[in-house]
Each structure stands twice: as structure tokens, then as C-alpha cells.
């Protein structure tokens, strides 16, 4: 009897091992099914409506005649979310920097962390309502405006950015900070020239996650910008957005409009997909730089 | 729980025991060499010459042990001083062994029935006893790391040197008898060997002081006890 056969694991344990593998693979497949189904249905229902007009025309909104496209919705979404990103990402990373570099384990920092955790759980409609009550009803700078939608989305995105950024910043090894400090660098230089560049990919990925979330939220848009069919660029007026468009169209009696809603949904997923691919490309390029 | 570097300490103790054993071998050789001179015992003298191989062998063993210890254990501080001292001492032992052989080789040459001078014989006897006691004392000083005992050896060595000079003087004045003169010459050589043995024990004493204090001082046998002891 060889040494190895003596040391081998019992057949029962080997069976359990195999069972485990099968179970885990099954669970993975189970989890993938809805995802695959969603993409399948989006493609099935929406692909037909994708044509040139879809991207170049605004929704006509009429009950008869041409359906138009969703151009204003796409551009509107992009613009609103862009502003929301510009608000939430710098502030979010700033808060994360405070938590990791200055606050660390202090009482204040822990309180901040707690509140951020709470904010991640707040339903998006609450943010919409908050902005509605504080900005829309008070008629600050107009009634229903796109920039208020951005603010609402920013509030939504902020805790996501903070949380993911903090995790990534904590992963930056202390030895790097030490090395920079020991050279005689002031702390803000350490942060901007060493810590942030090292965490860059993680920060970008975290922000893109927040952006993807922001692109898809409907409730805050309802209370703040309410949607307008026509193409607008001004943030101080009402603006269309993809989730709003889908919301409006999906209940329409016209089949072509419903089909367009599916297509809009497909477009939304595609945008998020593109964002993720961009994030990956950024991370790969920075690693090879 | 064993103390750290247990094997190293054991090996070092073993090495030291081998060196001390070498000193015992020298004592044995010296005894027999002196006896062979006193009784003109040619056979005993031949034994002394043959037995020197054991001392040479001991030298090689200790030398190898020290090299091995230096290479593998990197001794420092007190350990390093002991190792360095042991290397020095085993060479002294080898030289003392050679001196015993030289004495033994002179026995058949001095002839069985040759005339002898009582004074010279007494002096040589006395030198032999002193040399023997010095070797013992050196062994004791090294084994117990006794600095006072070591320093005392330098003083004792003064006596051997004095006897050596005296034997030389007596030999010069010994008379006209050719055989007597020839015998006296051989006695001078024997005395010389014994004096060398004495010097080697002083070398060993210097090493003992070095091991204990970390300082190396040449011990001048012509100095008085007071100056030697002064810090």
C-alpha cells in the first residue's frame, strides 16, 4: 500500500466534495437564469423598435401617427445623471478621504459612517419626496426642473460613492502613505499624489456603480422633473429621461409605444453595460501605464 | 526547556575538554621524558617519541573543530575569545609535545655510563619538576578561568629561566673531562627544552587572561609580582 493511498481522504468525504461542487454550480446557474431571461426579453421585445428614428427623433406623444424616438429621453438621462455625478462623486470621495485619512477611528468619523450606512438603505422615492418638499414646492429656482432631479439623484448616489471609495482607500497599503510622509510630504500631497492615484481604479469603478444606479432610478425623477417630451438642454426646466419615458410608455394602449418602452429599457441596459466596459478599459490602461 | 544554542554550547564544552585533555597528554609525556633522562631509559624515551602522534592527532582534531565552529556558529564575544584562545593553546600543546620528544631524543645520546655532575643533574631535576607543575597549573587556570593562577605562572617561569641560565654557567665551568663536557652539553639542550615548555605555559596563561578580561597582555617574567598584578 503506497504512502499516498494511506493518506488519502475517505470515499465519503470525496463524495461530499463532489456534491458541494455540483450544488454550487447549480446555484450559480439558478442565479444566472433571471439575468439571461431579462436580457432575452429585452432583446425579443425591444430589438424590433431599434432604428434610426429611435435615436434621432423625440417622442411624438400623439395618439396617432408616427411614434417618434426616444432621443430626448436618452440625452436627458445623460445630462441629469452627469450633473448628479459631478455633484456626488467629488463630495463622496472627499467624505471617504476624510474618513480614512483624518477621521479614522474618531467618534465623529464613526457617527458619519453610521449615517452613510443608513442613507444607503433609504428608498429612492424618499429622496425624491425630500427634494420635492424642499426645492420644488418652495419654488426655488423654478418648479419642476432637471437640476433638482440631479440633486435628488446625487443624494441617492452619494452614500454608494462614499462606501465604495472608503473601502478602496482603506485598501491602499499604509506603507505607501508612510513612505510618502517619510519623504517630508505634507498630508494633502500624500493624498493627491500617492493615495488617490493608487486607488484610482477602485474609485472609478465605485463611481460608475453609483452612476449605473442613478441612471435607472425613476421615483426621484417623478417628483422633480416630471418629464417633458420635447428635447431640451436647459437644466433649469423640465427634462425627459429614459426611466420616465419607459414609465409613461409601458402603460400606453398603442402596441408600438409599448414596444418602444422595451427598446428604451434595452437602451438603458446597454448604456450601463457601456459604462462598465469603459470602467474596465480605464482600469486596464492605468495598470499598464 | 533546553537553553538556546544548546548544541553549540555542548560542542564548545567538548572542544575545551579536548584541549584540556591535550594538556594532560603533555603532562604524561613530560613525566616519562624526565624519567627517561634520570634513569637513562632508552626504551621509555622511544615510547615518548612514538606517543607524540597522539598529541599531533589531538591538535588536528581541535583545529578542525574550531574551523567548523567558526564556519557554522559564528561565535561572538566571550565565545569568540574562547575559540580563539583554544586555537592558540592547542598549538602551545603541540609545541610542548615536540619539546618532550626533543628531550627524549637526547637520552640515548647522553650515554649510559657517562660521568655526571651532581649540581647540573639537580638543577635539571628541579627544572623538570617546575615545568611539570607549570603545565598542571596552566591546565587548572584554563579549566577554571582563574586569572590569578594564570598571572602566577609568569612569576614561576622566572625560576625556570634562572635555572636554565645556571645550568649553562655550570656546564661551561664543568671541567676538562671530555665525556663530562659532552654530557653537560646534552643537559644544556634538555634544559633549553624545559625552558621552552615553561614559556608555552606562560603563553597559555596569557590566553586565560584574554578569555576572562578581553585584554591581551604579554606577561613579562622578569617583572615583579606587584607590577604584574597592577591594573
Amino acid at each position: 500500500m503506497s504512502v499516498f493511498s494511506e493518506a488519502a481522504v475517505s470515499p465519503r468525504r470525496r463524495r461530499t466534495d463532489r456534491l458541494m461542487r455540483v450544488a454550487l454550480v447549480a446555484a450559480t446557474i439558478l442565479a444566472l437564469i433571471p439575468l439571461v431571461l431579462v436580457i432575452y426579453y429585452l432583446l425579443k421585445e425591444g430589438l424590433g423598435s431599434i432604428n434610426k428614428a429611435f435615436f434621432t427623433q423625440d417622442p411624438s406623444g400623439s395618439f396617432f401617427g408616427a411614434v417618434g424616438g426616444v432621443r430626448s429621453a436618452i440625452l436627458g438621462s445623460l445630462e441629469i445623471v452627469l450633473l448628479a455625478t459631478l455633484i456626488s462623486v467629488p463630495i463622496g470621495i472627499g467624505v471617504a478621504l476624510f474618513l480614512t485619512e483624518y477621521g479614522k477611528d474618531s467618534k465623529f468619523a464613526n457617527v458619519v459612517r453610521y449615517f452613510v450606512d443608513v442613507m444607503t438603505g433609504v428608498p429612492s422615492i424618499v429622496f425624491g419626496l425630500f427634494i420635492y418638499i424642499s426645492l420644488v414646492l418652495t419654488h426655488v429656482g423654478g418648479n419642476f426642473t432637471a437640476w433638482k432631479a440631479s440633486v435628488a439623484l446625487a443624494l441617492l448616489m452619494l452614500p454608494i460613492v462614499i462606501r465604495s471609495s472608503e473601502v478602496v482607500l482603506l485598501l491602499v497599503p499604509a506603507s505607501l502613505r508612510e513612505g510618502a510622509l517619510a519623504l517630508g510630504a505634507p498630508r494633502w500631497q500624500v493624498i493627491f499624489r500617492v493615495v488617490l492615484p493608487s486607488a484610482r481604479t477602485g474609485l472609478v469603478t465605485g463611481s460608475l456603480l453609483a452612476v449605473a444606479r442613478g441612471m435607472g432610478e425613476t421615483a426621484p425623477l417623478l417628483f422633480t422633473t416630471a418629464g417633458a417630451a420635447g428635447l431640451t438642454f436647459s437644466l433649469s426646466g423640465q427634462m425627459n429621461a429614459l426611466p420616465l419615458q419607459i414609465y409613461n410608455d409601458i402603460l400606453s394602449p398603442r402596441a408600438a409605444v409599448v414596444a418602444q418602452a422595451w427598446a428604451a429599457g434595452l437602451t438603458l441596459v446597454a448604456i450601463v453595460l457601456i459604462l462598465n466596459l469603459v470602467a474596465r478599459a480605464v482600469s486596464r490602461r492605468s495598470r499598464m501605464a | 526547556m533546553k537553553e538556546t544554542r544548546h548544541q553549540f554550547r555542548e560542542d564548545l564544552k567538548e572542544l575545551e575538554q579536548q584541549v584540556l585533555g591535550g594538556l594532560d597528554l603533555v603532562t604524561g609525556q613530560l613525566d616519562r621524558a624526565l624519567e627517561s633522562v634520570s634513569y637513562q631509559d632508552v626504551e621509555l624515551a622511544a615510547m615518548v617519541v612514538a606517543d607524540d602522534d597522539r598529541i599531533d592527532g589531538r591538535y588536528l582534531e581541535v583545529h578542525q573543530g574550531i574551523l567548523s565552529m567558526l564556519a557554522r556558529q559564528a561565535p561572538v564575544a566571550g565565545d569568540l575569545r574562547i575559540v580563539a584562545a583554544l586555537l592558540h593553546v592547542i598549538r602551545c600543546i603541540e609545541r610542548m609535545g615536540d619539546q618532550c620528544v626533543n628531550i627524549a631524543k637526547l637520552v640515548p645520546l647522553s650515554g649510559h655510563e657517562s660521568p655526571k655532575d651532581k649540581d647540573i643533574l639537580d638543577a635539571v631535576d628541579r627544572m623538570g619538576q617546575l615545568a611539570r607543575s607549570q603545565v598542571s597549573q596552566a591546565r587548572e587556570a584554563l579549566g577554571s578561568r582563574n586569572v590569578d593562577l594564570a598571572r602566577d605562572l609568569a612569576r614561576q617561569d622566572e625560576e625556570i629561566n634562572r635555572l636554565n641560565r645556571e645550568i649553562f654557567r655550570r656546564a661551561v665551568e664543568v671541567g676538562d673531562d671530555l665525556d663530562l663536557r659532552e654530557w653537560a652539553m646534552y643537559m644544556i639542550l634538555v634544559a633549553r627544552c624545559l625552558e621552552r615548555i615553561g614559556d608555552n605555559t606562560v603563553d597559555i596563561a596569557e590566553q586565560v587572561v584574554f578569555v576572562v578580561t578581553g585584554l591581551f597582555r604579554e606577561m613579562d617574567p622578569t617583572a615583579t609580582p606587584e607590577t604584574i598584578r597592577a591594573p
Partner: protein
Amino acid sequence: MIPPDTTSKEPSQMSTAREQSEQAEATPDRSGSVESRPGRGIKVRGLNAYYGKQHAIKGVDIDFPANQVTAIIGPSGSGKSTVVRCINRMHEEIPGARADGSVTLDESDVYAPDVDVTAVRRVIGMVFQKPNPFPTMSIYDNVAAGLRLTGTKPHNLRETVNTTLRAVGLWDEVKDRLNEPGVGLSGGQQQRLCIARTVAVSPEVILMDEPCSALDPIATLKVEELIDELKARYTIVIVTHNMQQAARVADSTVFMLDGEVIEHAPTNDLFTKPKDERTERYVTGKFG
């Protein structure tokens, strides 16, 4: 056990000759080295350091002579790393840690109330146990990092970087790949890169906290040779738990135990005839 060394003052041929040769060893011949200039020494007086309530360094006095390598040895927890971190005030970066006492470079006390900590660290550089080149920077940028981070602008940055790389013996190995990431080098090369980064800002003193612990034996020897060359221009303090390294590299050695200095002597003396029983026990490995 060992009587005080008062005998060495007596005129005796052997000891004078040996003392003379030891003297020659202690003051290195700086005339032949490239651009040597006298550095500045450090004096530590009454240094106490705490981690919260724990009193880690208990009233320590040490002199670090200019242009010499001083090693600090001792068992784990003896406080050797802490002492060194107090010299360039990195100790206080740890939450809850503080220190008091005086650490003077020439006449300037590092702990004086109006002193700018970043200036201290520019003048007293540090190399760490695990090589830590900045991962997002190239080799060139890493060497230049110290200069850029502290806002110092030399007339010719490229030349400074190249000279520094030459000074640490890395030039031949990296001259064709200066733009490659710093983390792509081997461990030993990375550590020399970190030394270059530290040296580029022209400090007076270089502190090294177990710089070779993470390196293989050959890389270690290269770094040790570098240290030997560097001491012509800088004062070097090296913390090491490798006694053989201290024996090879240091002009004088400090032995610490439980936050106190037990013995501080020329390396040769400390390793052949230490004065304190505790030093002897540590150095010969009799420590339990």
C-alpha cells in the same frame, strides 16, 4: 564579571597598536569617495515614547556620530524601531502615540515647538523594512517623487534622478527602462530604488528600519555595500535584528532592551568584549 577597562590606558605595545588600528577603522577615509561632504550627527537626549499608556522608550540618550553607521540591535519589543521613528517624528503618526525629549541635529531640536514636521522629514530620511515604491509611478517618477512631493525644484530634474540612480548602483540595471513601473523590479532593486528616492532629496541623515529583512542574501549584501558607500555623505542609523549584519556594516552598535539602552560601543568591542552581562547574553544567543 569583566573588570572596567582602565588597563587600556597603560602604555603597552600590543594594546596601543591594536587601539590605533581600531581608530583607523572608526574614521573612514573619505578623501577618495565621490563628492563626500561632512554630514551632521544626531544627539538623542532624554527620549521618552508612549503608545497610549504603554511606556515604550524610557529616557534614552544616544549619540549618532556624523558620517558613521550606527546600528541598533535588541530583541523584539526592545524599542529599537520606536527610537528611530521618534528621530524623524514618524512615531506621532500612529494614533495615540506620543513622544517627548530632545533629538538634535547639530543644534536644532526636532521636537522644538515651532518646527515644521515635513521639514524634519526632508532632512532626516527613512527607508522601511518592506520596499515600498509607489506603484502608480515609473522608476524615474519614483526617484523624483520625493522632490515633487515636497515641492523642491532642482534645476535639472533628469540629471538629479540619473545621478541618484548611479549613486545607489541601480543605473546600469534600469537605464533602459526608466519609464517602467517601479514595482516591476526585484525586491533588492526595489529597496535600492527606495533608497534612491530618499537620497534624491539630499537629506543629512538616513534612518533604516530593518532594510534587508525582506531581501535575499545577495540583495542584502548589495544594500550593505551601498550603505558603506553612502556613509561618506550621510549619517546612517540602521535598526537590525540580524547581528551579523550589524557586525558587518556598523561602526558602532547600540544594544537596547525593554526600552532602554544597555550598551553603546564600537562594533568591534561590542562583539568581542561586551561590557554588560546582558549584552553578552544576547549577542551569544543565550537569551531564552
